[in-house]
């Protein structure tokens, strides 16, 4: 899968998992801070995002510190998905 395609897919999944009302994938920039003021997310959303990674990409994050590095922007999440898929 193309990286660009993966990004759109991930954005769609983020919207679905977090039920971000009024957002479309186009509204989320690759470099938007997911836990910045734009989305108003909190610690429960972080848990929801790690469930997303496990269910949709088969990647299980066990270390909360890892989560803080990965769940930053769409780009950091995509990098993480690609890196962990490559290993598998």
């Amino acid at each position, binding site marked *: 899968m193309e990286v660009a395609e993966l990004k759109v897919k991930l954005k769609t999944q983020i919207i679905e*998992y*977090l*039920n*971000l*009302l*009024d957002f479309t994938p186009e509204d989320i920039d690759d470099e938007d801070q997911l836990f910045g003021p734009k*989305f*108003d997310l909190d610690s*429960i959303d972080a*848990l*929801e995002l*790690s*469930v997303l990674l*496990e*269910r949709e990409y088969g990647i*299980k994050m066990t270390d909360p510190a890892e989560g803080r590095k990965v769940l930053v922007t769409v780009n950091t999440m995509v990098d993480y998905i690609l890196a962990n898929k490559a290993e598998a």
Partner: protein
Amino acid sequence: MFIKDLSCISPQKTFEDDFFGTEPIIYTGSQLKAVEPSYADIPRSQLRRMGKSNRMATGAGMPLLQKHKTDGIIIGTTDGGMEDCHRFLNQIIQYEEGTLTPTNFVQGSPSSPAGGLALMSANSGYNNTHSNKGLSFENCLMDADLLFIEGRAKSLLVGCVEEISQAQYRIETLAGFIKKDEITSDKLIGCGTPGAINGEGATMFVLESENDNALAELVDADMISYPTADDLVAKAKLLLERNGLAVSDIDALMLGYSGDSNSDHWYDVFAEQLFPETGILSFKNLFGETPSASAFATWFAANLVNGKSVPSQAVHKPISGELKTILIYNHYQGNQHGFVVVRAV
């Protein structure tokens, strides 16, 4: 206690429209879904997580919290976010106790509406949730009354919320508490078949200890579980007595007739034994049955003693004279029985 303000999201047009000026909605079948507003005032970042009961409680409660300064929040709900609860339960089974999304778990707790309202209104005062099936609203009234007596509050947000969840609906149907035959809600009472029809919604009151231009007075409430018919009459007599009320002071009974042939006889017997001459109003043919149905009844009664006209569908036995004092008697599935007295101010 006095009702300073109130709001109601229900299967009728009670929230944004004039319920008393229009014909009630007549439903077919056993699920009376709430007529929900657009919730434009709830921040989208909060709304995205809310299940139906949280949404309805917030939609009905927040405007009151914004309008009135309140010292605390007391909510009654039996099922809370039952739909979320079952979503979580289904996740547990589907993913075999694997990694699960916590939102359904948190939203599914009955304490979620009271906590959510406190959070959104930054109200760090008294906060409690009564989750006691058919007596949850009466429990809220006791809690509020005590805070007023103790002088710990002057004004409180008190209300109930219930949602129809498909899982609980099926469970209640299995247990025989929901009608299997399809009838229209205007033909509900006396239809002669077992089971009730399910309603949902949120009813919120601003209650105050003093009468400051109040809409109505909540005189008192009481309850009993698993009574005999004699127990029930004795309890009602005590309630009247301690409030200095005679049978003739009650201008109308508002009874919880649900159309359930297994348990509506309680109302017949009660009215015959203690109030043979009194007019009778019904409300579940408009709002359906919920564990906290007496909250709808109280909203309805408060409006009626405040001068709103009685919808013809609610007249079970004609009322003569002015409507100043209404005794609400409601039971849930024949086990939990509650009373509320509402009076004009």
